[in-house]
């Protein structure tokens, strides 16, 4: 535990990726094998089930700290993290524990089945004996994930550095269901299996946003245009009768999308497709919110599969007949992709609802007509356009020149700040989570319409935070109502009627565009103004 707590402390006290990787890599070289397995499990969201609910935990911690519960709760609101609050508030101990990480986790696993008094005794005894950082880590093990800026990817990179095993191979080995309590480090990480190499993806080619006038990109005839779909970028690999789905975060997500399993029989082996996973309820593209119900799940229920099925909209082909074709031109790769698609569709009379779809490629004879197409993005449920040079190879990572994204401008409205809440993590103790309101019909009352957490600079957040602290009207736990005085321009990507919102309107990805220090609240927009933005066909 001592070594693990030291590791977490090191990871937590740097913002530099390389330092994190080095700290993890040396941990993976030095720690005991069972502890390594548990560390991998914890950093890949495989923590043990929570043995105690947080209400009990809070009440036991306040008792141990000898402060009233309300004071503990207030501290929690301000600190913004339960484990950190407990670590700070519980009286300090100079002791270190000699128990290993694995021993702690086994105890925590066993704790779940115990009676409440036993749980309480176990927790209080341990909290009393651990030092500050161990207490923080111990409570984190009980309450949930470590948000310390270590992704599964970063952890995998460090493990690769420590073991000299290829990163992508490791990512594959670590996927799926394995039990940290029973598997050995050797079986999980070291043992060689031929099939590990089957899943290896290609690095994604990523586009930059168009910076200047599109006409500066040269002759429109050199460019192929597609809509930019608002889903999850993914790479589909079919090799040797196996399917692998990688997300752009280079995370293996095959199990999350069982719809694609059928491709094993429909698409020839030795094929790698680049495309977008899109939600497709009722035979049409759904909203990103629909997709979000799928992203978080490790296993997907039948009901969810029926309610929110997904499709793959393909736009590029990276491997064909087992050969890497990334150096061929975009046009050539598309041609093979389209042939593949045609063969796939021969068995179907209606191709509209198929799980494998083609992202339509368009050619234009002027930039003006490209711009006209871009204006149709909202009705086509896209975020804008992708511009790809017809003769471009498939490059590695984010490169300028051949691929550009040209998003539609967001919708905007001026709204009044009415409530504020402290942020979490990096922003705990700062009021950074805001609620915004618009005027009702008579311009008498302000009606809440959206929450936004991003868009201001750190300096602006500090300024608004200071203003909020001086202009609080009422406090409701972590939330404060403030004097309606500040106006912000709020941008959002989409808008639809909604029964779940008080305002009757839901906005997609609202964020703060800028602080309108030039505007008074009387000049803010109304709900009517917002409603007028809803596309008429809805």
């Amino acid at each position: 535990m001592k070594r693990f707590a030291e590791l977490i402390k090191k990871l937590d006290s740097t913002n530099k990726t390389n330092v994190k990787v080095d700290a993890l890599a040396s941990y993976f070289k030095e720690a005991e094998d069972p502890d390594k397995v548990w560390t991998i499990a914890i950093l890949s969201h495989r923590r043990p089930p929570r043995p105690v609910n947080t209400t009990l935990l809070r009440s036991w911690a306040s008792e141990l700290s000898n402060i009233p519960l309300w004071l503990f709760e207030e501290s929690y609101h301000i600190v913004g993290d339960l484990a950190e609050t407990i670590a700070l508030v519980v009286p300090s101990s100079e002791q270190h524990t000699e128990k290993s990480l694995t021993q702690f986790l086994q105890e925590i696993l066993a704790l779940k089945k115990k009676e409440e008094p036993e749980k309480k005794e176990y927790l209080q005894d341990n909290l009393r004996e651990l030092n500050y950082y161990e207490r923080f880590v111990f409570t984190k093990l009980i309450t949930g994930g470590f948000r310390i800026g270590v992704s599964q990817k970063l952890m995998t990179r460090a493990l690769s550095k420590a073991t000299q095993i290829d990163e992508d191979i490791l990512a594959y080995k670590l996927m799926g269901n394995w039990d940290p309590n029973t598997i050995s480090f050797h079986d999980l990480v070291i043992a060689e299996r031929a099939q590990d190499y089957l899943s290896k993806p290609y690095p994604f080619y990523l586009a930059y946003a168009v910076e200047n006038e599109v006409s500066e990109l040269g002759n429109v005839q050199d460019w192929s245009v597609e809509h930019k779909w608002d889903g999850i970028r993914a790479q589909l690999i079919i090799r040797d009768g196996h399917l692998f789905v990688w997300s752009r975060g280079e995370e293996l997500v095959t199990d999350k999308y069982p719809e694609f399993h059928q491709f094993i029989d429909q698409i020839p082996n030795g094929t790698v497709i680049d495309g977008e996973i899109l939600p497709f309820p009722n035979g049409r593209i759904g909203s990103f919110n629909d997709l979000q119900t799928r992203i978080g799940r490790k296993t997907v229920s039948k009901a969810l599969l029926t309610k929110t099925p997904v499709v793959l909209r393909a736009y590029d082909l990276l491997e064909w007949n087992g050969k890497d074709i990334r150096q061929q031109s975009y046009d050539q790769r598309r041609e093979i992709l389209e042939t593949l698609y045609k063969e796939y569709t021969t068995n179907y009379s209606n191709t509209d609802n198929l799980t494998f779809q083609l992202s339509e490629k368009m050619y234009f004879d002027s930039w003006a007509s490209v711009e006209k197409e871009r204006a149709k993005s909202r009705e086509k449920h896209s975020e804008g356009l992708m511009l790809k040079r017809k003769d471009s190879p498939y490059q590695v990572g984010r490169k300028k020149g051949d691929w550009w994204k040209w998003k539609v401008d967001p919708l905007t409205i001026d709204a009044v700040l009415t409530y504020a809440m402290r942020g979490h993590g990096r922003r705990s103790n700062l009021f950074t989570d805001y609620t915004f309101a618009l005027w009702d019909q008579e311009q008498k009352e302000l009606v809440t319409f959206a929450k936004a957490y991003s868009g201001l600079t750190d300096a602006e957040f500090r300024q608004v935070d200071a203003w909020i602290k001086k202009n609080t009207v009422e406090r409701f736990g972590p939330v404060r109502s403030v004097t309606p005085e500040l106006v912000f321009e709020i941008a959002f990507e989409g808008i639809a009627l909604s029964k779940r919102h008080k305002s009757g309107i839901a906005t997609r990805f609202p964020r703060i565009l800028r602080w309108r220090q030039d505007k008074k609240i009387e000049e803010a927009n109304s709900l009517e103004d917002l409603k007028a933005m809803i596309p008429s066909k809805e």
Partner: protein
Amino acid sequence: MKTPLLIFNENGIYCEAADVYIDPWRKVDKAIITHGHADHNRWGHKQYITHHDNVPIIKHRLGNISVSGIAYGESFMINNVKFSLHPAGHIIGSSQVRVEHQGEVWVFTGDYKIEDDGISTPFEPVQCHTFITECTFGLPAFRWVPQKEVFSDINSWWASNQSEGKTSVLFGYTLGKAQRLLKHLDTSIGKIYTHGAVENMTNVIRPMADLPETTLITAAVSKEELKGNIVVAPPSAHGSTWIRKMVPYETASASGWMTFRGARRRRAIDKGFVLSDHCDWQGLLDAVKATGAQKIISTHGYTDIFSRYLRELGYDARTERTQYEGELNELETKKESEVDG
């Protein structure tokens, strides 16, 4: 009902009987100033009264003002009201203000800390009936460790950066924290360099405190020369072009707010040392108890929480709004970087 001895009005803390303000935030005729930080010591009053160690500090900040210096414990009368200043231990020249009139005694703390920092005159509790206290860190989550331990951490951080060929850049606000850091840095490790704002203020304080030698970073100072040494700078220097000269460097901030993991990460600082010039939770409770006061007024910080807890302990406690900025810790990265702890 009799007017309270001290009231909070739109200008500041006011003693009607004496017609004098303490730490006013608007221009007034006569002001008693607890210490030199910008939220307590504002420009434009006709007459300033403060501890004599604070006189050169506020003159340095405010220019040519009319100011009289007083010693700790020395009492002075204004319209039959008896005033005296007592050490607050916050920074050099910082005072609590004791006000006595017709047998009633009030004390206003300004900003204060209990621990002896080795540079300010240590805090002394003053018996009173009504105690007006700041509570910047009035939350049980704040618990300081003795400064000896903190400085041992700071010095080992410096030594470890040095062994990696890096320059250490340590942030602390210009008046108070910077000199406290200078005083306790281990000069056997290397040389101490300063940012201009820190150097200027330190020169003002040198006649009153024994401080180690510092070198101002000017254009003449080379990057090579800085390597392995330590630089003391105001937080506002973080992220400025000025700091590029220190590459490769490690940054650290010394402040009470470094208690929170988020505070350090938000500022993208490599290391945070928890070192404050205010009281921690227990310090505040001890200070309140030591005054023997029954009535407690909290002015800035987590006031509502602290007052509620005091009421549960049986005190007659309430909160008054002021414009002191203890809670507005984030201002420390703005131009005047001294509102922190």
